[in-house]
């Protein structure tokens, strides 16, 4: 039963040798398991610990960070590939193969997964640390850290998955943990509603993932990604016919997790959770899962399911452009950031869908830093002013300098200003779109960059500039919270340098090489040199956005007339309501199913099926009575008691007429008289 498979020790796509890694690669499973151990330990003993379990979660994440960092460096120096699987089930043959299909658990260590391990561990570690400060005095701290560990652990299981089955396990584990964390303050119904919404939206999308797995697995005879990618690269016959549909189904799954239009609805509501959760969810775990899945199965889309792009790309572009506008009208600072994440996920998905494996992943990489930074900064502000709304903020620049400056770094990076991280990754996406011939989408993406810059400037202005509009005295957060901010600000600035087109950093190479250490050739495009014209367009868009935002919001951040100026009729309510998509889902689908449809089914059960059953029962009982009463009791004694019995029976029946009800008598009289009259007339 135990079947550790090491099927592939191979050459990389570019001919370089891939090593199987050393001790750290062989024991990478520790990373996958540690958070779960922490989860259990916190549940069991967390309450009794001094840090209420936070130390266990942080410790586990710290060890993970060490592991991941070592692997990261190893992978920079020499490509690593290792895949290990443990069979957890042999499920039968489906009558199509001689061998049993099997489910496996295991881990894969390659450039892609190492990058993700590191991002999850790094961001996770910092967020956990931050949360230790943020959640002081909160309800259920142990449970919170247990859920955070579960969250990170599930994500690691997901990114470490060598096959679709384990991916599904991690995938829904992430969904579960997000449900628990979003609903952390479940005493209030809106929060639990948001949690349920997140879970349900993801569950809908998971149907796609599960069906996609079902389509691809049996066709391939294996659920392994390596087998899938190899088959796709070879244009294997076994995938003919299922590639496009299967690919689209997997993409549908990714749409849910990565909040692509129109399944993005859960993400803004997910702000109901504590801020560290948002940071983790938006930067490292959860939403990147969809992008990761697309990257993991990239050869399928690149080689065989190319037709699927016709659907994937528009969805991604709609997401990045149309949903970005929603950030313009939000008053809740976290919602602004949430819509910005949706929009950025659109960028990543657009890149991957257009064939830019590296570009999408690189944006995921840089985005993880600055978005975590922005969320943690927002958390710091919220911690200080006790409100999520920007209308209660303003003028925090002086009282919260560290938060302010790090937040600005994150915002500028997100806006895509050279030479910060966001610029380089976004530029690469634009280049990919342009190169693959999606010129229109490229321009839309540039416009999207303008919108991004605009709403980030608005957010910064309303939060930090002008004068303070709330009550109380906001003050800078403790070091345990500002520390992670600084730690995240650094990669938000410099991370972009690792993938400047055409630049390699000596022995460690560049990002393209790191994530390119895969067994199966990617065949993707990544620019070899900087395309200055595109960079210029991007910069102009970003600059224009910042200028416009500055012009509109910075001067009167105190009076907020600008916000009112943005309340354009028709457009404002449309944006404010998120294009009414939520209403459509709730009123069009969820409520009817919960209400009328469910009640109708229940009615059918009680009134139709049960009535038939009860009716048959009652009828049988009546037949029994008749059989007993007439045939048995009277039939047998018929000969003897014919006269008496018959008379008695008739009397018994006739006496029913003697109800004693005057009205019935009167009615009978009337009816009888009528009949007599009719008879009389007819006879005469």
């Amino acid at each position, binding site marked *: 039963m135990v079947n550790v498979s090491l099927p592939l020790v191979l050459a990389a796509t570019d001919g370089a040798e891939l090593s199987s890694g050393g001790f750290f690669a062989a024991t990478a499973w520790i990373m996958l398991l540690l958070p779960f151990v922490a989860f259990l330990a916190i549940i069991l003993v967390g309450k009794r610990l001094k840090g209420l379990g936070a130390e266990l979660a942080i410790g586990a994440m710290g060890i993970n960070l060490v592991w991941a960092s070592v692997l990261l460096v190893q992978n920079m120096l020499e490509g690593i590939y290792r895949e290990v699987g443990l069979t957890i089930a042999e499920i039968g043959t489906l009558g199509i193969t001689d061998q049993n299909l099997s489910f496996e658990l295991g881990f894969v260590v390659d450039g892609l997964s190492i990058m993700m391990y590191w991002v999850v561990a790094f961001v996770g570690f910092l967020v956990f640390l931050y949360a230790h400060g943020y959640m002081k005095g909160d309800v259920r701290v142990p449970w919170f850290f247990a859920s955070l560990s579960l969250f990170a652990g599930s994500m690691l299981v997901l990114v470490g998955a060598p096959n679709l089955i384990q991916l599904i396990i991690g995938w829904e584990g992430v969904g579960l943990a997000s449900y628990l964390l979003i609903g952390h303050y479940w005493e209030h119904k809106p929060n639990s509603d948001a949690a349920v919404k997140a879970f349900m939206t993801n569950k809908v999308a998971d149907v796609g993932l599960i069906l996609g797995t079902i389509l691809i697995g049996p066709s391939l005879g294996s659920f392994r990604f390596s087998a899938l990618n190899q088959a796709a690269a070879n244009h294997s016959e076994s995938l003919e016919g299922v590639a496009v549909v299967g690919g689209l189904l997997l993409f549908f799954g990714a749409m849910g997790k990565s909040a692509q239009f129109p399944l993005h609805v859960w993400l803004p509501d997910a702000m109901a959770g504590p801020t560290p959760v948002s940071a983790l969810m938006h930067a490292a775990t959860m939403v990147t899962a969809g992008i990761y899945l697309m990257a993991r199965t990239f050869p399928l889309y690149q080689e065989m399911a190319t037709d699927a792009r016709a659907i994937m790309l528009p969805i991604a572009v709609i997401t990045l452009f149309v949903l970005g506008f929603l950030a313009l009208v939000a008053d809740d600072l976290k919602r602004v950031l949430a819509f910005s994440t949706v929009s950025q996920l659109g960028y990543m998905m657009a890149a991957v869908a257009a064939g830019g494996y590296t570009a999408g992943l690189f944006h995921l990489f840089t985005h993880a830093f600055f978005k975590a930074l922005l969320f943690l900064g927002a958390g710091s502000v919220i911690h200080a002013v006790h409100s999520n709304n920007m209308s209660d903020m303003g003028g925090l620049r002086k009282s919260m300098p560290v938060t302010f400056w790090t937040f600005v770094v994150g915002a500028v990076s997100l806006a895509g200003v050279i030479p910060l991280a966001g610029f380089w990754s976004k530029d690469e996406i634009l280049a990919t779109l342009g190169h693959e011939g999606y010129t229109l989408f490229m321009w839309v993406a540039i416009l999207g960059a303008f919108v991004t810059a605009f709403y980030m400037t608005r957010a910064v202005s309303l939060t930090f500039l002008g004068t303070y509009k709330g009550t109380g005295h906001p003050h800078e957060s403790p070091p345990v919270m500002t520390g992670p901010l600084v730690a995240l600000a650094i990669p938000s600035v410099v991370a972009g340098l690792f993938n400047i087109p055409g630049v390699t950093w000596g022995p460690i190479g560049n990002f393209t090489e790191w994530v390119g250490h895969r067994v199966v050739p990617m065949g993707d495009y990544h620019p070899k040199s900087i395309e200055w014209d595109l960079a210029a367009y991007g910069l102009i868009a970003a600059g224009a956005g910042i200028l416009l935002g500055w012009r509109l919001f910075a001067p009167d951040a105190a009076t907020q007339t600008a916000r009112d100026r943005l309340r354009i009729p028709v457009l404002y309510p449309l944006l404010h309501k998120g294009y009414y998509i939520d209403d459509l889902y709730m009123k069009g689908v969820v409520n009817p199913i919960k209400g009328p449809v469910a009640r109708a089914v229940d009615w059918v059960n009680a009134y139709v099926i049960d009535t038939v059953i009860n009716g048959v029962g009652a009828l049988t009982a009546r037949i029994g009575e008749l059989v007993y009463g007439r045939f048995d009791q009277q039939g047998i004694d018929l000969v003897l008691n014919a006269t008496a019995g018959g008379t008695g029976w008739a009397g018994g029946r006739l006496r029913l007429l003697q109800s004693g009800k005057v*009205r019935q008598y009167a*009615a009978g009289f*009337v*009816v009888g008289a*009528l009949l007599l*009259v*009719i008879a009389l*007339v007819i006879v005469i």
Partner: protein
Amino acid sequence: MTLADWIAEPVNWAFLAMAFPMVLAALRVVTSRNVVHAALFLVLALAASAGLFLLLSAEFVAWVLVLVYIGAVVVLFLFGIMITRAPIGKETNLSHKKIWPAAVASLAVFGVTFWLIYELGEQVGGFSDTLPAVGQATPTEILGEGFINIYLIPFEAVGFLLLAALIGGITLARKDLSPAEEREGAGL
């Protein structure tokens, strides 16, 4: 006789002037929620029918109706209502909840009767001719002769019936007395 001719006769207006209130009053008799009102509506209906009798030259019958019915029977009713302490005001319990069987039956009665009138009219004829005897009042003399000549025995029988009703009414309505009360003659 066409409808236009019929309308042209003034006496028919008089008929309608009495028939409509009569039907309406009759309807109120059977639907009113107040027993006293019902009884008073009956008075109205009967008065209208007395008027009709006058139109039909049956003067004696009309006055008998007024005297006996309106003067005596309805008063009796009102006494009955009061004695039985039936609620004088509105009462929901007066009619059945389900009235449609009654409605159906009464419609059926009306339908059959109507059909009967039609059939009879066909067979007998002359139903739509102007009534001959209208105009001159029937002399009470004829009625008196009829009672003591042709209908003597029924007349006696009715008298006997009235006596029986009188005695029966007293017997039924008086209280059952205990023997002691009987001796004291309390019931009288």
